[in-house]
Protein backbone atom coordinates (compact mmCIF):
# COMPACT_ATOMS: atom_id res chain seq x y z
CA UNK A 1 0.00 0.00 0.00
CA UNK A 2 1.24 3.45 -0.85
CA UNK A 3 2.01 5.79 2.04
CA UNK A 4 -0.62 8.32 0.98
CA UNK A 5 -3.36 5.73 0.75
CA UNK A 6 -2.39 4.37 4.13
CA UNK A 7 -2.60 7.82 5.72
CA UNK A 8 -5.98 8.49 4.16
CA UNK A 9 -7.22 5.22 5.50
CA UNK A 10 -6.07 6.25 8.98
CA UNK A 11 -7.89 9.58 8.77
CA UNK A 12 -11.04 7.95 7.55
CA UNK A 13 -10.81 5.36 10.31
CA UNK A 14 -10.57 8.00 13.05
CA UNK A 15 -13.47 9.99 11.65
CA UNK A 16 -15.52 6.86 11.46
CA UNK A 17 -14.75 5.88 15.03
CA UNK A 18 -15.96 9.23 16.30
CA UNK A 19 -19.41 9.40 14.81
CA UNK A 20 -21.46 7.53 12.30
CA UNK A 21 -21.66 9.38 8.97
CA UNK A 22 -25.44 9.62 9.08
CA UNK A 23 -25.65 11.01 12.62
CA UNK A 24 -28.09 13.77 11.55
CA UNK A 25 -30.38 11.14 10.11
CA UNK A 26 -30.17 8.98 13.23
CA UNK A 27 -30.98 11.93 15.52
CA UNK A 28 -33.91 12.99 13.38
CA UNK A 29 -35.24 9.46 13.37
CA UNK A 30 -34.97 9.18 17.16
CA UNK A 31 -36.88 12.44 17.59
CA UNK A 32 -39.52 11.50 15.04
CA UNK A 33 -39.94 8.15 16.70
CA UNK A 34 -40.34 9.73 20.14
CA UNK A 35 -42.96 12.13 18.81
CA UNK A 36 -44.73 9.38 16.88
CA UNK A 37 -44.96 7.34 20.06
CA UNK A 38 -46.89 10.15 21.74
CA UNK A 39 -49.17 11.30 18.95
CA UNK A 40 -49.66 8.04 17.11
CA UNK A 41 -51.28 8.60 13.75
CA UNK A 42 -52.74 11.95 14.69
CA UNK A 43 -51.64 15.10 12.93
CA UNK A 44 -49.68 17.68 14.88
CA UNK A 45 -50.75 21.18 13.95
CA UNK A 46 -48.73 24.32 14.63
CA UNK A 47 -50.28 26.91 16.95
CA UNK A 48 -51.99 27.38 20.32
CA UNK A 49 -48.82 26.42 22.16
CA UNK A 50 -46.31 28.98 23.32
CA UNK A 51 -42.92 28.06 24.69
CA UNK A 52 -40.95 30.54 26.70
CA UNK A 53 -37.25 29.73 26.51
CA UNK A 54 -34.26 32.01 25.96
CA UNK A 55 -32.98 31.77 22.36
CA UNK A 56 -29.35 31.89 23.45
CA UNK A 57 -28.41 29.69 26.38
CA UNK A 58 -25.05 30.15 28.04
CA UNK A 59 -25.46 27.21 30.38
CA UNK A 60 -27.55 24.30 29.21
CA UNK A 61 -27.66 22.80 32.69
CA UNK A 62 -30.34 25.17 33.91
CA UNK A 63 -32.66 26.62 31.34
CA UNK A 64 -35.89 28.32 32.43
CA UNK A 65 -38.60 26.77 30.32
CA UNK A 66 -42.31 27.53 30.35
CA UNK A 67 -45.03 26.10 28.15
CA UNK A 68 -48.39 27.80 27.87
CA UNK A 69 -51.34 26.53 25.87
CA UNK A 70 -54.31 28.57 24.71
CA UNK A 71 -57.32 26.78 26.11
CA UNK A 72 -60.41 27.66 28.11
CA UNK A 73 -59.61 24.71 30.43
CA UNK A 74 -63.23 23.66 30.86
CA UNK A 75 -64.54 20.14 31.27
CA UNK A 76 -65.46 20.08 27.59
CA UNK A 77 -62.32 21.64 26.22
CA UNK A 78 -59.05 21.39 28.07
CA UNK A 79 -55.44 20.41 27.71
CA UNK A 80 -54.82 16.82 28.68
CA UNK A 81 -51.06 16.85 28.70
CA UNK A 82 -48.02 18.81 27.70
CA UNK A 83 -45.07 16.98 26.15
CA UNK A 84 -41.68 18.48 25.44
CA UNK A 85 -39.02 17.23 23.06
CA UNK A 86 -35.53 18.67 23.30
CA UNK A 87 -34.02 17.50 20.03
CA UNK A 88 -30.42 16.81 20.97
CA UNK A 89 -30.81 15.43 24.50
CA UNK A 90 -29.66 11.86 25.15
CA UNK A 91 -33.31 11.10 25.83
CA UNK A 92 -35.32 13.35 23.54
CA UNK A 93 -38.67 12.47 25.03
CA UNK A 94 -39.53 13.93 28.41
CA UNK A 95 -42.52 12.38 30.22
CA UNK A 96 -45.71 14.36 29.71
CA UNK A 97 -47.15 16.67 32.34
CA UNK A 98 -50.84 15.77 32.65
CA UNK A 99 -53.26 18.65 33.08
CA UNK A 100 -57.00 18.98 33.43
CA UNK A 101 -59.83 21.44 33.94
CA UNK A 102 -58.83 21.68 37.60
CA UNK A 103 -55.66 23.52 36.61
CA UNK A 104 -57.59 26.60 35.49
CA UNK A 105 -54.74 27.70 33.29
CA UNK A 106 -52.59 25.58 31.02
CA UNK A 107 -49.17 26.82 31.93
CA UNK A 108 -46.32 24.84 33.43
CA UNK A 109 -42.82 26.09 34.05
CA UNK A 110 -39.63 24.44 35.17
CA UNK A 111 -35.91 24.56 34.67
CA UNK A 112 -34.56 22.05 32.23
CA UNK A 113 -31.23 20.75 31.04
CA UNK A 114 -30.76 21.11 27.30
CA UNK A 115 -27.87 19.20 25.81
CA UNK A 116 -27.10 21.07 22.66
CA UNK A 117 -28.13 23.55 19.99
CA UNK A 118 -31.27 22.37 18.30
CA UNK A 119 -35.02 22.56 18.33
CA UNK A 120 -37.19 22.35 21.43
CA UNK A 121 -40.67 21.18 20.54
CA UNK A 122 -43.55 21.31 23.02
CA UNK A 123 -46.67 19.40 22.01
CA UNK A 124 -50.04 19.89 23.69
CA UNK A 125 -52.57 17.08 23.72
CA UNK A 126 -56.14 18.40 23.87
CA UNK A 127 -59.22 16.73 25.28
CA UNK A 128 -60.69 16.44 21.77
CA UNK A 129 -57.68 14.37 20.69
CA UNK A 130 -55.94 17.02 18.65
CA UNK A 131 -52.27 17.89 19.00
CA UNK A 132 -50.73 21.33 18.75
CA UNK A 133 -47.12 22.26 18.78
CA UNK A 134 -44.51 24.91 18.37
CA UNK A 135 -40.85 24.49 17.62
CA UNK A 136 -38.18 26.85 18.79
CA UNK A 137 -34.52 26.69 17.89
CA UNK A 138 -32.17 27.39 20.75
CA UNK A 139 -28.42 27.87 20.76
CA UNK A 140 -26.57 26.28 23.65
CA UNK A 141 -22.98 27.27 24.34
CA UNK A 142 -22.31 25.09 27.37
CA UNK A 143 -23.90 21.70 27.04
CA UNK A 144 -25.79 19.92 29.80
CA UNK A 145 -25.56 16.18 30.44
CA UNK A 146 -22.08 15.85 28.98
CA UNK A 147 -19.35 18.14 30.19
CA UNK A 148 -17.34 17.94 27.00
CA UNK A 149 -20.33 18.67 24.85
CA UNK A 150 -21.87 16.48 22.25
CA UNK A 151 -20.19 15.69 19.00
Amino acid sequence: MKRRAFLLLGVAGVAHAQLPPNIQEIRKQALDEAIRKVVGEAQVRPGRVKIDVPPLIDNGNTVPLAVEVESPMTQADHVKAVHTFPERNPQPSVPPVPLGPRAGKARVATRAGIADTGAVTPIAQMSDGSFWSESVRVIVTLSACLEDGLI
Partner: protein
Amino acid sequence: MARVVVNVPAEAKKGEVIEIRTLAGHPMETGFRRTQLGELIPRDIIRTLVCTYNGVEIFRADLHPAVAANPLITFHTVATESGTLEFRWTGDNGFSATQSATIKVV
Protein backbone atom coordinates in the same frame (compact mmCIF):
# COMPACT_ATOMS: atom_id res chain seq x y z
CA MET B 1 -34.70 15.46 55.00
CA ALA B 2 -34.35 17.41 51.90
CA ARG B 3 -35.09 21.06 51.85
CA VAL B 4 -38.27 21.86 49.95
CA VAL B 5 -40.07 25.13 49.52
CA VAL B 6 -43.55 25.79 48.24
CA ASN B 7 -45.13 29.11 47.44
CA VAL B 8 -48.91 29.24 47.61
CA PRO B 9 -50.88 32.48 47.96
CA ALA B 10 -52.18 32.80 51.53
CA GLU B 11 -55.54 34.08 50.39
CA ALA B 12 -57.50 33.83 47.17
CA LYS B 13 -60.95 34.56 45.84
CA LYS B 14 -63.19 31.60 45.14
CA GLY B 15 -62.71 30.42 41.57
CA GLU B 16 -59.51 32.36 41.12
CA VAL B 17 -56.64 30.72 39.25
CA ILE B 18 -53.66 30.66 41.56
CA GLU B 19 -50.04 30.05 40.73
CA ILE B 20 -48.14 27.50 42.81
CA ARG B 21 -44.38 27.34 42.79
CA THR B 22 -42.43 24.45 44.24
CA LEU B 23 -38.74 23.96 44.72
CA ALA B 24 -36.90 20.92 46.05
CA GLY B 25 -33.24 20.74 46.89
CA HIS B 26 -31.85 17.81 44.93
CA PRO B 27 -28.80 17.29 42.68
CA MET B 28 -30.84 15.55 39.91
CA GLU B 29 -27.87 13.51 38.74
CA THR B 30 -28.72 12.55 35.17
CA GLY B 31 -26.83 9.28 34.85
CA PHE B 32 -25.10 10.54 31.72
CA ARG B 33 -22.14 12.21 33.37
CA ARG B 34 -18.81 10.58 34.09
CA THR B 35 -16.21 11.10 36.75
CA GLN B 36 -12.68 12.13 35.83
CA LEU B 37 -11.79 8.44 35.79
CA GLY B 38 -14.44 7.79 33.20
CA GLU B 39 -16.87 5.93 35.42
CA LEU B 40 -20.53 6.63 34.88
CA ILE B 41 -22.17 8.46 37.78
CA PRO B 42 -25.35 6.54 38.57
CA ARG B 43 -28.66 8.26 38.07
CA ASP B 44 -30.22 9.89 41.13
CA ILE B 45 -33.28 11.98 40.40
CA ILE B 46 -36.66 12.86 41.82
CA ARG B 47 -39.20 10.73 39.98
CA THR B 48 -42.53 12.32 40.79
CA LEU B 49 -44.16 15.35 42.32
CA VAL B 50 -47.76 15.00 43.44
CA CYS B 51 -49.86 17.84 44.77
CA THR B 52 -53.20 17.30 46.49
CA TYR B 53 -55.71 19.96 47.47
CA ASN B 54 -57.81 18.84 50.44
CA GLY B 55 -57.10 15.25 49.48
CA VAL B 56 -57.89 15.67 45.78
CA GLU B 57 -54.99 15.29 43.40
CA ILE B 58 -54.63 18.48 41.36
CA PHE B 59 -51.21 18.09 39.83
CA ARG B 60 -48.80 15.30 39.11
CA ALA B 61 -45.54 15.43 37.20
CA ASP B 62 -43.10 12.72 36.30
CA LEU B 63 -39.67 14.21 36.47
CA HIS B 64 -36.91 13.24 34.11
CA PRO B 65 -33.12 13.56 33.88
CA ALA B 66 -33.74 16.60 31.66
CA VAL B 67 -35.10 18.52 34.66
CA ALA B 68 -32.34 20.68 36.11
CA ALA B 69 -30.89 20.33 39.59
CA ASN B 70 -33.07 21.71 42.40
CA PRO B 71 -36.24 21.24 40.37
CA LEU B 72 -38.47 24.28 40.30
CA ILE B 73 -41.96 23.50 39.07
CA THR B 74 -44.64 26.11 38.56
CA PHE B 75 -48.25 25.26 37.84
CA HIS B 76 -51.77 26.61 38.34
CA THR B 77 -54.96 25.52 39.97
CA VAL B 78 -58.40 26.90 40.76
CA ALA B 79 -58.93 27.97 44.35
CA THR B 80 -62.11 26.18 45.35
CA GLU B 81 -62.17 26.12 49.14
CA SER B 82 -60.05 26.85 52.18
CA GLY B 83 -57.79 24.04 53.17
CA THR B 84 -54.37 22.56 52.82
CA LEU B 85 -52.26 21.64 49.85
CA GLU B 86 -49.96 18.69 50.30
CA PHE B 87 -46.89 18.23 48.16
CA ARG B 88 -44.99 14.98 47.92
CA TRP B 89 -41.75 14.34 46.06
CA THR B 90 -40.43 10.82 45.60
CA GLY B 91 -37.29 9.73 43.86
CA ASP B 92 -34.42 7.34 43.35
CA ASN B 93 -32.57 5.87 46.31
CA GLY B 94 -35.61 6.19 48.53
CA PHE B 95 -35.83 9.96 48.27
CA SER B 96 -39.00 11.30 49.79
CA ALA B 97 -40.07 14.73 50.95
CA THR B 98 -43.37 16.28 51.90
CA GLN B 99 -44.53 19.81 52.49
CA SER B 100 -47.88 21.41 53.04
CA ALA B 101 -49.34 24.88 52.73
CA THR B 102 -52.65 26.34 53.79
CA ILE B 103 -54.84 28.57 51.73
CA LYS B 104 -57.78 30.70 52.76
CA VAL B 105 -60.49 31.12 50.15
CA VAL B 106 -62.81 34.05 50.59
